[in-house]
């Protein structure tokens, strides 16, 4: 063989190339076929990461979709001590930012080699300072933190969360499972530079958003007035509740003392307690509405029946019970207006214990109302077989029974609502993103007939017009309600305290078509302590603001002197200089205590001219409707422009308000029909206000 021949040389080159090709392919085959699993595992270990996804906690809104509580991501910092070369230097640098001692941080760093929390959920400025230090071994991580942008507004309803966003009170607690959401995991593929190039989420589910029945503006009005009342009366605690009369929706729930959920650690357990649903007290004279409602409903009395109140003293089974004033002969309407204990006791005894007990339970006492807030007390009502011989008398005037504020306002609301007890509630709906689901029908039950409720509303107006609560009289609106002044039990003696009282007023407005029911309770006011003196004025201030805010049509003319004061020309001396006004400079930490409440009607410093001319509404005088048929009554009401509530069939037997009453167009008139001829009736004592 000639080695120099071209053919041989070609063969040598080909053989060399073939050899290298076989080697390369063999190596590729070995790597791809035999080592595939091993390299795949190594790649997964290097590239795959699992990132825990914190659930997005749902937002709490008020009824107008204003955010009351929401979560955002903030920075937390952890350390990998094994990566830190100089622990002391790092501790010194971080201690200045974290407002702690270097020893604290050194102790933490010494606790573990792989992972240790340095600080969780830091404010943005501190987080930025730590990031700027760019310390090796110190890493940021995003965590969710709950914020309450309105601070203490509605704090008892909203509740609060712990550092891991677990609900601990209020709606945050009762709906924690829906609001919390579900954590998930994100599988991430990252390259050698830790850049992500693929990711997939598994299992994460955002929490439901919740819409409450609260109105943040009404809530603010209630909290502001409560704060003012506490300051004026030096009370130790108080509650204001505002409820929609027809639906039972809680528009405002204000408690004092209160707290800021953003810094719940600074608040005492007393401040965090929701007194409106958890605090028990003897209602006192407010409870007479139950006694009288029961007596009227059972037909054992009428508003005009005259009762001998025995000049303020009555003996029940050998026990002497004294009235707060010596009353003689009073009509049943006057018993309520003047709050005669003797009169109420006589009606309660006439009713009898079993029936009284049934009506008390019917009005919602002795059982939780079912409001969607935690910690509700069922109240204190002894079972009927545990009643003593004196119990019907005591309970008739509001002693020997413990109630919560929410129970009391719900009972009064039943009267405002035409005799139907509606479960009070704060939850309007919930859902995810923009898909909100209403909670649906709320439980309700009829307690008394509409005519009884209408009669009671008129009688309760007497409390304001000529009874114990003239300070509750509203400008521009009719109002009705009941005062209560209950002695507290002195824990040291176990007897009623002569100096400590619970002063209450529960009322609604307007009386013919109630828009809102409001309860005001003050615990241990100093000085004046009667419900009519301390709670009724608060009711007035709250009601006037709330009714104006809700644009409820006025059904009463306004005091002309008040209107004239409002039209005074503007005084330049009182004109505020707003040339240097900068909203950005304003600090939002101003406490409600610093806010001045609206001026009283007789101390009007109003200098700004009105923007709208005041127009008096049309009023009509109700004609007698008794003896007319249903069709005739409907036609009359349509002609007058009032809204009839027709009960029964036949001819009209009774109308509420009574004939001759001046009412506003659009008001509701209740007419009861039957088969018999109406009895002769005497005109009621006391003039109707025009």
């Amino acid at each position: 063989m000639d080695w120099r021949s071209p053919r041989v040389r070609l063969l040598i080159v080909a053989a060399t190339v073939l050899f290298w090709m076989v080697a390369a392919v063999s190596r590729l085959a070995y790597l791809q076929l035999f080592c595939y699993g091993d390299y795949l595992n190594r790649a997964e270990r290097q590239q795959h990461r699992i990132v825990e996804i914190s659930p997005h906690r749902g937002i709490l809104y008020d009824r107008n979709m204003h955010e009351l509580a929401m979560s955002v991501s903030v920075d937390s910092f952890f350390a990998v001590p094994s990566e830190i070369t100089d622990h002391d230097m790092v501790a010194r640098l971080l201690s200045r930012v974290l407002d702690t001692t270097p020893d604290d941080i050194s102790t933490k760093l010494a606790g573990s080699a792989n992972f240790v929390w340095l600080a969780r959920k830091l404010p943005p400025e501190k987080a930025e300072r730590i990031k700027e230090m760019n310390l090796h071994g110190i890493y940021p991580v995003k965590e969710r933190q709950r914020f309450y942008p309105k601070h203490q507004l509605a704090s008892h309803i909203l509740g609060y969360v712990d550092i891991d966003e677990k609900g601990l009170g209020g709606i945050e607690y009762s709906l924690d499972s829906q609001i919390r959401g579900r954590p998930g995991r994100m599988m991430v593929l990252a390259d050698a530079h830790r850049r992500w190039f693929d990711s997939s989420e598994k299992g994460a589910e955002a929490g439901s958003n919740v819409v409450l029945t609260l109105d943040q503006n009404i809530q603010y009005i209630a909290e502001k007035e409560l704060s003012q009342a506490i300051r004026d009366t030096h009370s130790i605690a108080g509650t204001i509740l505002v409820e929609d009369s027809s639906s039972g929706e809680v528009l405002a729930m204000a408690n004092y003392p209160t707290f800021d959920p953003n810094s719940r650690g600074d608040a005492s357990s007393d401040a965090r307690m929701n007194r409106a649903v958890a605090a028990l007290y003897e209602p006192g004279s407010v409870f007479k509405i139950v006694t009288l409602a029961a007596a009227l409903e059972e037909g054992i009395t009428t508003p005009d029946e005259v009762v001998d109140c025995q000049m303020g003293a009555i003996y029940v089974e050998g026990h002497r019970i004294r009235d707060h004033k010596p009353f003689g002969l009073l009509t049943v309407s006057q018993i309520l207006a003047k709050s005669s204990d003797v009169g109420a006791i006589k009606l309660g005894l006439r009713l009898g214990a079993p029936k009284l007990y049934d009506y008390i339970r019917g009005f919602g006492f002795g059982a939780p109302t079912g409001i969607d807030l935690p910690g509700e007390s069922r109240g204190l009502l002894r079972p009927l077989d545990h009643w003593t011989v004196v119990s019907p008398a005591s309970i008739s005037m509001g002693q020997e029974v413990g109630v919560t504020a929410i129970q009391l306002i719900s009972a009064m609301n039943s009267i405002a609502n035409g005799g139907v007890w509606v479960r009070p509630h704060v939850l309007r709906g919930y859902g995810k993103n923009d898909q909100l689901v209403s909670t649906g029908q709320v439980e309700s039950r009829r307690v008394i007939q509409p005519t009884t409720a209408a009669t009671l509303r008129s009688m309760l107006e007497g409390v304001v017009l000529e009874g114990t609560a003239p300070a509750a009289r509203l400008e521009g609106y009719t109002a009705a309600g009941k005062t209560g002044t209950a002695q507290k039990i002195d824990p040291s003696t176990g007897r009623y305290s002569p100096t400590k009282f619970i002063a209450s007023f529960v009322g609604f407005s307007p009386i013919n078509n109630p828009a809102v029911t409001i309860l005001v309770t003050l615990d241990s006011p100093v000085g004046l302590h009667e419900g009519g003196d301390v709670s009724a004025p608060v009711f007035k201030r709250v009601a006037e603001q709330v009714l104006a805010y809700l644009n409820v049509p006025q059904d009463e003319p306004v005091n002309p002197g008040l209107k004239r004061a409002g039209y005074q020309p503007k005084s330049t001396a009182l004109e505020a200089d707003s040339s240097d006004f900068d909203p950005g400079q304003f600090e939002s930490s101003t406490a409600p205590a610093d806010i001045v409440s609206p001026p009283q009607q007789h101390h009007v410093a109003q200098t700004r001219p009105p923007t709208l001319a005041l127009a008096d509404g049309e009023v009509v005088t109700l004609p007698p409707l008794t003896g007319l048929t249903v069709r005739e009554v409907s036609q009359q009401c349509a002609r007058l422009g009032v809204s009839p509530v027709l009960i029964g069939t036949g001819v009209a037997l009774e109308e509420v308000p009574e004939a001759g009453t001046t009412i506003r167009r659009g008001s509701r008139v209740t007419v009861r029909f039957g088969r018999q001829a109406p009895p002769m009736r005497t005109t009621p004592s006391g003039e109707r206000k025009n």
Partner: protein
Amino acid sequence: MTEFFTVKRIDNSRVVRIAAPRRLRECARLVGLAALLATGVLLYAWQHFQCIQMSYQLEELKAARAQAMEFNQELRLEVAGLRSPMRIDAIARHQLGLTAPVPGQVAPMQTPGGPILAQARRSSPPAAQ
């Protein structure tokens, strides 16, 4: 004896190599197949790396979107704080010198219903130019 060395000059420049069409076709076919194969491999590789690039971009966009949503949430929180009734009330009273209206000073306007309002607007003469 004298030897004569002669050089025979061979001039092949006028020799024309006879072309082998079959051979040429085979060669061209081979080259075409190889080119096709190479293009396919290159195309596969390009798509693969393009996919990876787009994955990077997608992850960057996801991160940007998450960041924007988080920023939006922070802004909503800030707006909620600025809209606090307590804050607005204090600004109105302390900074602007406003006070609450007395009862009866503000009356709600009673506007006509939609169809009536529309008809009134349609029948009213247009404003002069």
